[in-house]
Structure formats: structure tokens, C-alpha cells
């Protein structure tokens, strides 16, 4: 299993999860290096992780962000035959409301379940409950959920409020379990417990591994667990299904829109193939440790080369080595001409915008896993990757970053958890030809250059919104191209809105709001030694 990875893993101790425990450790606790702010070169980030000089920075100013609870509640909410029970004040459910709208428009013919109802219940903790304890209310809510929806599973999501007052969730659950038919799954995702959002994913997988996944009755040789699909979109799910289908394999997409049975049978799959290696990290390792399901995590199916490798790894574990080569050949035959066309179009643009053999530059990514995907893909398209953004970073991906640097060269990376101002500052400093930003992350800003999107809304089912697989390589490449052809959005924002930032911010160090920076640099853009770029800061 994962033969290459573990050997070179000198950056984190050999974590063995313990499912008898109530929950997972936080990423900070487990990995030592798990941070939400950094600005510098990829190579220094890797180096700092290895020599353990990188620590969690303190910010003195931060705008709205997210939390371990809200980031997973929206995913768990989509699990069929389940209830998401928020043991929280009512406001903690605010992110869940959008879920209906995100997916309702998808026609059933595109795979949206006919019975689309999402079951979201909250204990609505009030002042009285915080004073007197909320477990009675929780037990009642569990019973009520069981009666109302007859679910197969009830996910009890803890919150800051329940965590601070110390409600004994496990005790309440074990007391009430015999009275309800549904499997109760406590998920300990108090927002304050970790400053790295991905701890929320680990907590989710811990609960699912501990309470839902069954011991395998048989092995299903054609079943492939595909984790965290909705880091991408609905249409990507279709593309992955298509590709695996051609190999005679079935994708078991988890957790979004999976059924409780889908989760139960994860132990029977031939392999776990994550869409994002770090979001699904706890699950893929847990499935291997507890049930011997192998995994790989080196590739993300974005871009042609990455998709080839992603499929080849799946084939390795499913005995489809020959079939996969045939599939790759077929797919390449269809998309290679389209991809070449795309590259030609970009070349035309390059000639217009750039001198001599200078490449077009781009900044991409949003999650640390996507840094790998974007950098590879953009390089394939002929771009020079100037920089990347990631909402957080931890030692799980250090080795992959190291390999990436060797592959595409060093570049600047900004780690910042949904701080739109930081992104704007970065783009202003690096001035790439193409910037890719994410919806919901506050990253739209005025620019006269090309601005694309990192990913589309999860519920987007239009073919042009694919990013994964071969069709994704074309569709996403076309999106990047459209961004150059039409730069009106940035201009429109510029014409119609006042700049939200004062001039000084554009000149400031992107880590301005980080307290006790190790060094106060005048130079804003880190110098990359012996590589393609030099500082253009002042």
C-alpha cells in the first residue's frame, strides 16, 4: 500500500488512529506543523516544516472565516437517510440553509435523488441550556429525529457551546442508543478546538469510521471509494463515474450524497482514491488501518497527466492495468487535439501580452491539495505558476510539495484562511496574467487582467463546469481561456465599486496582521534563488 509515501515521511510521526477514542486529534496536535498563515516560497515552507521551525502564527486582525463544524455540516447534511443534528445554538446552522438551493435545480436525470429532502435538526441551545446543560435536550432531539425521519443514521454535531459547557455527548448517546433505531454518530467538531479547518474533516471521518463503517463481509473488487467529491462539482462526479465505468469499476462517492449503506461498505472497496489527499486523509488511512483497504494519495484527477496517474493507481489495485492503458489512449485521442487547440489559443494571447519567450503567469488553488492539482495543470497549459494560495497547510502534504517544486519549479505560496484582503494583496504584488479565485471566499476584486474561478458551485451540473478528468481538463482550460477573452468582471467591479482597501494595504507585507513575524521584510515578494523569478518588490 502507499509504498512510496510512507518511507519518505520524515515530517510527521507515524500516526495510528485509535477508534476507541471519542474523536481525532487536531491537525496541529497530530502533525506539529498545521498552520493557517504563511507567506513565502514553497521551498522555505517545506524546509521550515522539516526542521520544525514553522509554528502557528497569531493574527491580530482577521475577517470572517469558517470553522470545523460549518465546513463539514454542509457535507454531512447531504448523506441520504440521515439526520444532521446540530447540538448548538441555532445560528451555527446558518451555512446549512444554502444546501437546498445549491442542489435543488439539478434534474433527476442528472442524478439528483428524487427524494431530495435534507434533514437538519438543531437543539437550539439557549442561555438556559448553557447554564443547566444540554444533554436532556439532545436526547429528546435524537428521539424526535428518529420518529420524524426514520433515518439510518443521526449525526450529532457538537459545537463551541456544547464543548465549553462540557456536555457529555458520548454518555448521552450511549444512554439513548438502545431507544432509537438509527445509528447515532457523535462528531466532535467544536470550532474552537482547532484553527485548522481540516480538523473538522478528520472528526467527521473518525465518527463515520467508528460508528458506521461495517466489517467487510466480502470484498468488492470493482468498488472504488472516491472521497470528498464535492470539493469539486456535480458534473465532476459524472466525469469520474464515466471514466471508472469504462474500466468496469463503480465509484463509491463519499460522503456527499452517499447513502448510509455506501458509507458502511467502504471497508469492502478495492481501493480508496481521494479527490483531495488531505481532506480525505483520515478516512483513507483509517480504512487501510482498520480494514486493509489500500489507498494512494499522490495524485488528484485534474489535468491530463494527473488524471492518467490517478486512473493508473486505481487500476493497479483493481487489476485493470491493461484496460486503463487502453482507456487513456482512447481518451487522449479524443481530447489531445482539443487540448492542443487550447494551448494554441493561449500562445496567441501570450504573444500579445509577453515579450520573447516569457510565459503567461498564473496563481491558483484554494486548498493545499489543490495546489498540487493546479500547479500541474497550469504548467500543462503552458503557464508559469507564479504563486498559489491555500486556506491552510500541514505536514501531510510537505513531501508532495517538495516533489512539486522539483517538477514545476519553486513559487510563492500564501496560506491564509479565507482572508480576502490577503489574497488581493498577493495578486497585487505578483501581478499574474491569470488569477484564479474561489466562490464564497470573497476573492473577487478589481483587475484589468484575466480572472477565473478556482472551482464552481458544488451543485453546478453544466458540462462547462467540469474540472476533473479529461473532460475537466478541456472545460477548465476553456474557462481559463474565456477569462482572457473577457475581462469585464474585474473592470465592472472596478468601475462600479469603491476600492475596499486603502493604498497602504497594497504596499503592505501580506503578513502585516500576523503578530510576531519572524522577520519584518521590506521585500514583499520572496526572492527565489536559482530559479525562474527574481523579486519585483520594492
Amino acid at each position, binding site marked *: 500500500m502507499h509504498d512510496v509515501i510512507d518511507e519518505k515521511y520524515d515530517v510527521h510521526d507515524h500516526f495510528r488512529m*485509535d477508534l476507541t*477514542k*471519542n474523536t481525532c*486529534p487536531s491537525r*496541529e*496536535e497530530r502533525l*506539529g*506543523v498545521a498552520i493557517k498563515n504563511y507567506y513565502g516560497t514553497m521551498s522555505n515552507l517545506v524546509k521550515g516544516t522539516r526542521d*520544525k521551525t514553522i*509554528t*502557528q502564527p*497569531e493574527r491580530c486582525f482577521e475577517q470572517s472565516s469558517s470553522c470545523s463544524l460549518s465546513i463539514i455540516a454542509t457535507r454531512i447534511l447531504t448523506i441520504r437517510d440521515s439526520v444532521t443534528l446540530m447540538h448548538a445554538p441555532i445560528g451555527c446552522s446558518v451555512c446549512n440553509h444554502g444546501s437546498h438551493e445549491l442542489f435543488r435545480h439539478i434534474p433527476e436525470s442528472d442524478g439528483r435523488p428524487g427524494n431530495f429532502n435534507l434533514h437538519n435538526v438543531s437543539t437550539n441551545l439557549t442561555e438556559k441550556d448553557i447554564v443547566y*446543560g444540554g444533554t436532556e435536550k439532545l436526547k429528546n432531539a435524537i428521539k424526535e429525529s428518529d420518529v420524524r425521519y426514520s433515518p439510518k443514521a443521526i449525526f450529532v454535531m457538537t459545537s463551541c457551546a456544547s*464543548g*465549553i*459547557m*462540557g*456536555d*457529555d455527548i*458520548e*454518555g*448521552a448517546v*450511549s*444512554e439513548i442508543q438502545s431507544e432509537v433505531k438509527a445509528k447515532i454518530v457523535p462528531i466532535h467538531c467544536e470550532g474552537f478546538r482547532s484553527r485548522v479547518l481540516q480538523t473538522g474533516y478528520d472528526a467527521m471521518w473518525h465518527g463515520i469510521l467508528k460508528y458506521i463503517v461495517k466489517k467487510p463481509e466480502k470484498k468488492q473488487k470493482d468498488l472504488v471509494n472516491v472521497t470528498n467529491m464535492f470539493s469539486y462539482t456535480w458534473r465532476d462526479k459524472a466525469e469520474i463515474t464515466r471514466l471508472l465505468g469504462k474500466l468496469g469499476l463503480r465509484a463509491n462517492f463519499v460522503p456527499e450524497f452517499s447513502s448510509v449503506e455506501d458509507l458502511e461498505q467502504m471497508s469492502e472497496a478495492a481501493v480508496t482514491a481521494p479527490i483531495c489527499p488531505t481532506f480525505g486523509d483520515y478516512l483513507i488511512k483509517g480504512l487501510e488501518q482498520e480494514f486493509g483497504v489500500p489507498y494512494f494519495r499522490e495524485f488528484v484527477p485534474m489535468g491530463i497527466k494527473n488524471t492518467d496517474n490517478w486512473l493508473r493507481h486505481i487500476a493497479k489495485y483493481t487489476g485493470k492495468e491493461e484496460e486503463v492503458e487502453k482507456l487513456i489512449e482512447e481518451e487522449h485521442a479524443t481530447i489531445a487535439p482539443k487540448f492542443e487547440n487550447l494551448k494554441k489559443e493561449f500562445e496567441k494571447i501570450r504573444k500579445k501580452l509577453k515579450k520573447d519567450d516569457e510565459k503567461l503567469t498564473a496563481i491558483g488553488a484554494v486548498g493545499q491539495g489543490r495546489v498540487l492539482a493546479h500547479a500541474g495543470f497550469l504548467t500543462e497549459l503552458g503557464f508559469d505558476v507564479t504563486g498559489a494560495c491555500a486556506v491552510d497547510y500541514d505536514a501531510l502534504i510537505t513531501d508532495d510539495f517538495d516533489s512539486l517544486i522539483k517538477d514545476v519549479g519553486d513559487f510563492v505560496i500564501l496560506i491564509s484562511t479565507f482572508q480576502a484582503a490577503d489574497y488581493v494583496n498577493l495578486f497585487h504584488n505578483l501581478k499574474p496574467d491569470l488569477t484564479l479565485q474561489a466562490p464564497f471566499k470573497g476573492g473577487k476584486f478589481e483587475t484589468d487582467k484575466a480572472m477565473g474561478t478556482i472551482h464552481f458551485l458544488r451543485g453546478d451540473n453544466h458540462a462547462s463546469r467540469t474540472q476533473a478528468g479529461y473532460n475537466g481538463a478541456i472545460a477548465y482550460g476553456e474557462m481559463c481561456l474565456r477569462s482572457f477573452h473577457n475581462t469585464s468582471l474585474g473592470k465592472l467591479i472596478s468601475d462600479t465599486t469603491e476600492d475596499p482597501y486603502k493604498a497602504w494595504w497594497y504596499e503592505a507585507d501580506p503578513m502585516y496582521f500576523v503578530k510576531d513575524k519572524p522577520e519584518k521584510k521590506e521585500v514583499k515578494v520572496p526572492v527565489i534563488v536559482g530559479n525562474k523569478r527574481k523579486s519585483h518588490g520594492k
Partner: protein
Amino acid sequence: MSKIRNIAIYGKGGIGKSTTSSNISAALSEEGYKVMQIGCDPKSDSTNTLRGGQFIPTVLDTLRSGKRVETDEFIHDGFNGIKCVEAGGPEPGVGCAGRGIITAIELLKQRNVFEDYSPDVVIYDVLGDVVCGGFAMPIREGIAEQVYTVSSSDFMAIYAANNLFKGILKYANNGGALFSGIIANSVNLPEQQDILNDFSKKTKTTITEFVPRSLTVTRSELRGRTVIEAEPDSEQAGIYRSLARKIITNGHKYVPSPLDVDGLKSWAQSWSDRLLGQGEAPGRINCSLEHGVQIAEEEAVRAR
């Protein structure tokens, strides 16, 4: 790995929990047990007398740094190799001490401290009453299995013990810890013994040991040591050794029957009446809330 004995010792603040815990730990270590004592009190002075009066960095102090902490930064050797840990907590008047206990204990579990150090006995010295969910953490499932409470015959200490019984009753069905006995502390007079015996009978509990108030304790603690270390040949040391032996051999655990508010009040009233009937009692023993209130009210009237 042999089964670890996890014992929580609760009691009202100032009643002598840390003194008792540390002396039990010291006595057990003399018997050859590997002992770990975990102070669950933001004052973080539980293990002081095991470390010559020295404070140690607490779990929460080390977490504050933001860097990944190694377990040896908060686990320190004390008398006779006893592993000393202080959960720590916020300054008085700020933050949430209860959550502090949860955070500290969760960290110890996540770090597999108990597996790595493999103590024979872990003693949790927990602040006072079960004041909130956080302070109930050590008696929840998977932490301590047996609970003792340190109590004097003072009404407020008994009141706190009764509250602890309520906490145990609450968690008993969920696999939480069960009760194993009252450690009667600072009990020198027969009436004090009677009061505690009666309380234990009413709540269907047992008394593990009567520990008298003694200057030996004061002397030892002023020198930053346990009685076992400072005055090993004293009578008091013998009492602590006997207590420790009883605790380590006592596997009996059960659900206590706490008195309800009215029950406790009328029980206290009955003792007040009895002692008043004896004429001399009120001056010597303050055991009744009712009585205390009465005196306080008289004092208040006089002050006006």
C-alpha cells in the same frame, strides 16, 4: 500492559484533597507502585508537596506556547519517581477552567500518555464540587473508574460530597466512574465521626478512613513535602499508608444515593438539634447550615 487503576479524588476546596492525594501517591510509590498524580484544578498546586514545594509547568501552560509540546514538558518526576501532572487553567476570574480540564485530559489521552508511561495507578485530584461539565470530565466514561471524596464533618464539605454523589449518579448509566468511599479528613472528635458515619449511612456509602487533623501535616507541608516523605515514622504517615493500602486493595465500587435538598436540610437539622441538645457542641463543632445561618443573621442584626 496490566490494567491501570484510575482513581479520582474529589472534595470541596481547601478540604485537604491535594494533601490526601499526595500522601496516598507517596505511600503507594513506597509500596513499589508506579504512580501518576494529575491535578485537575486551575490553582495547579496538587503535586507541590511531591516536588519539594515547586510548581511545575502545567499542561495548559505548555499548550499556550502554540508550538507542539512534548509530553515530558508537562510530566515531571516527583518524590520516589511519581509522575506529576498539573492540568492548569486560566487565571482566577477569566476564561473557562472547566474547559481547561477537558482540553488537558483530552491531550493526555490523545498523546497516549497512559500507554507510554504505563503507571499502575493514576490519581486525579479534582477541584471541589462537580461545578460544571468540565470538572465532571474525570468521572466520565473511560477516565477514572473509582471515585473517593475527601470530606470533613463540616456541613459545606458534606454538601459538596452529596453533590458529587449526584454527579456520579448522573454518569453511572453511561459507563462513568462509580463511588468507592469517603475519606474523612480532619476528624478528631467522636461527634465528627458520628456525623460522617450517619451521612454515609443515609447515602448508602462507605467511609474508607478517618484521617485526623494533625500538626505533622502542617509541618511537612510548610517544608513542601508530604508527611510520608518528611515524617515517615510519624503516626500520621501510618494513617496515610493504611489509607493508601485500603484504596489500592478496594475494588468495590457502587452508585451512591445522594440526599435531595430537603433531605439534606432535615438531616443537617437533626444533627444541629442533637448537638445543641448536648449543650457544648455549637462552640466546638460547626456542622449545621441552619445553625450557621442563624448565627450569621444574628450577627447581621447586631451589626445594624
